[in-house]
């Protein structure tokens, strides 16, 4: 009996969402009075043993380069094999893009109940009940997991990472890896930018910004505070911004520490993707804009007046010219 945490990596580096998964898994193992172990697939440049600082004692490493790219079938088999060999009874993953590809397959393979998008630790008093977001973040459900083997994928940025001391024992895991059926022919990544799903701060623009040519100030403000940029669906539909920036019911669902919405009305479908954000700030010239009801801070004003002033104030704060 142990908790097995899947460590997700890309381009040779462990993803931030995995630190959350590791912390979550370690705390869950403590709660269950068992060991926290992890599984890493593919090769990475990072110091693997150092991940022990998040509370795992052992890391099963399948250092096979075929696994440097996410392949749902190969990942599922490898994680399932390690889980079975190590006697894991709970598997923890991030509900990020890799988790969404792999966790359901694992669930079907191991006949293990899956809670996808968990937002807290299980309640294990008398059962195994995990809280997750439903109705596009408009509510939560407490899910009973009825199987001996359990899988939890945790919602990114909904669980605080805790790093302590310690190193993990890294062991080579013996897993046979077939050749992938899905062949990756190209990757197109925006480099040097925090991916929206992992961003702690997000600056987002809506139709109130009038056109793509006005995004300079959005990007400048985001750059100053180290934020990722996002947009409303209306903006992505008008091709002012790329599709992957669109958040909401039909776009990405995010939970950053700060969501700054500029010229976005706050339609219910937009809120569905952002209302788990910790602090919401709204800049809108219409005091009746529905977004103010969901906001923590707000300014009723013209974005073309307020945003440049905000840039100047942040520069002052950060001491940049």
């Amino acid at each position, binding site marked *: 009996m142990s908790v097995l945490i899947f460590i997700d990596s*890309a381009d040779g580096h462990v*993803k931030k969402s995995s630190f959350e998964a590791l912390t979550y898994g370690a705390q869950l193992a403590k709660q269950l009075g068992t060991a926290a172990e992890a599984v890493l697939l593919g090769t990475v440049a990072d110091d693997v043993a150092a991940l022990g600082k998040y509370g795992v004692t052992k890391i099963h490493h399948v250092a096979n380069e075929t696994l440097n790219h*996410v392949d*749902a079938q190969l990942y*599922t088999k490898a994680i399932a094999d390690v889980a079975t060999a190590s006697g894991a009874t709970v598997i923890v993953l991030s509900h990020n*893009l890799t988790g*969404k*590809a*792999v966790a*359901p*397959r*694992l*669930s*079907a393979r191991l*006949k*293990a*109940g*899956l809670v*996808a*998008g968990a937002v807290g630790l299980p309640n294990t008093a008398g059962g195994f*009940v995990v809280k997750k977001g*439903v*109705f*596009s973040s408009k*509510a939560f*459900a407490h*899910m*009973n*997991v*009825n199987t001996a083997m359990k899988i939890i994928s945790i919602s990114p940025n909904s669980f605080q990472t805790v790093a302590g001391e310690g190193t993990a024992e890294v062991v080579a895991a013996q897993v046979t890896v077939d050749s992938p059926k*899905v*062949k*990756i*022919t*190209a*990757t*197109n*990544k*925006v480099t040097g*930018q925090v991916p929206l799903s992992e961003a702690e701060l997000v600056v987002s623009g809506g139709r109130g910004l009038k056109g793509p040519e006005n995004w300079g100030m959005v990007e400048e403000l985001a750059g100053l505070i180290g934020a990722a940029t996002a947009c409303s669906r209306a903006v992505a539909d008008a091709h002012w911004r790329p*599709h*992957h920036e669109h958040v909401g*019911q*039909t776009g990405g*669902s995010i939970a950053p*520490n*700060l969501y700054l919405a500029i010229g976005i009305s706050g339609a219910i479908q937009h809120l569905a993707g952002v209302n788990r954000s910790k*602090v919401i700030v709204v800049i809108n010239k219409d005091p009746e804009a529905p977004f*103010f009801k969901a906001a*923590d*801070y*707000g*300014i009723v004003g*013209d974005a073309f007046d*307020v945003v440049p*002033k*905000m840039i100047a*104030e*942040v520069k002052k*704060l950060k001491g940049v010219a």
Partner: protein
Amino acid sequence: MKILVCISKTPDTTAKIAFADNNTKFVQEGVQWIINPYDEWYALVRAIELKEKDPSTIIHLITVGAADTEPIIRKALALGGDEAIRVNADSHDSFYIASQIAEIAKQGGYDLIFTGKETIDYNGSSIGGMVAELLDQPYVSLATKFELNGTTATINREIEGGEETCEVNVPVVVSCQKGMAEQRIPNMKGIMGARTKPLKVAEPVAVDALTSVASFELPPAKAGVKLVDAENVGELVRLLHEEAKVI
């Protein structure tokens, strides 16, 4: 090419979310039901486009649901598709639903199975992956583009901070999101035609649900917005720095 499109029924995006019976039941009164947007706009429309390109393509729709899902599946048939199958079961356990779809898929011998990215009520993003595993087929999740060349599919899918292009031979299961296709409005001819398209009812196979809902909970209401004067933007920056501690 034989395509199976998975269709689910969800509350309208603006539906009021409320619970009854000690927070164990979703209140359905006054709720308008729609086809899950991802299933309709992206999975189904892309399948229809493939059939428009190659008229020999056969499209079947599947829904796992009670008799009250029939208006939804008829609505989907009005957009396109040759016939629909309803598996007569009412469950919210992803594995249970996926097992029913996999069973029908095994009998039907489909080359492609399309699902939506996720249901907007239970938000599992799980059923496509489960179906793929149950059929031992590859799974391309969160696809933004899909092209078919003979029996090889070229698919773009979302990865953190971008997209990747991949190639895979059919059969394959694909979950579909924005970018795959554009939303369509059903026309009169489609609506009339849908009435006579076959809608078969299949009984479910026996499968144990792996999870169940214990209870629901609504998020706590926000305390209310703190408004800062537009002439005093510095105050907002100060609050975000000192009070909210986010910048």
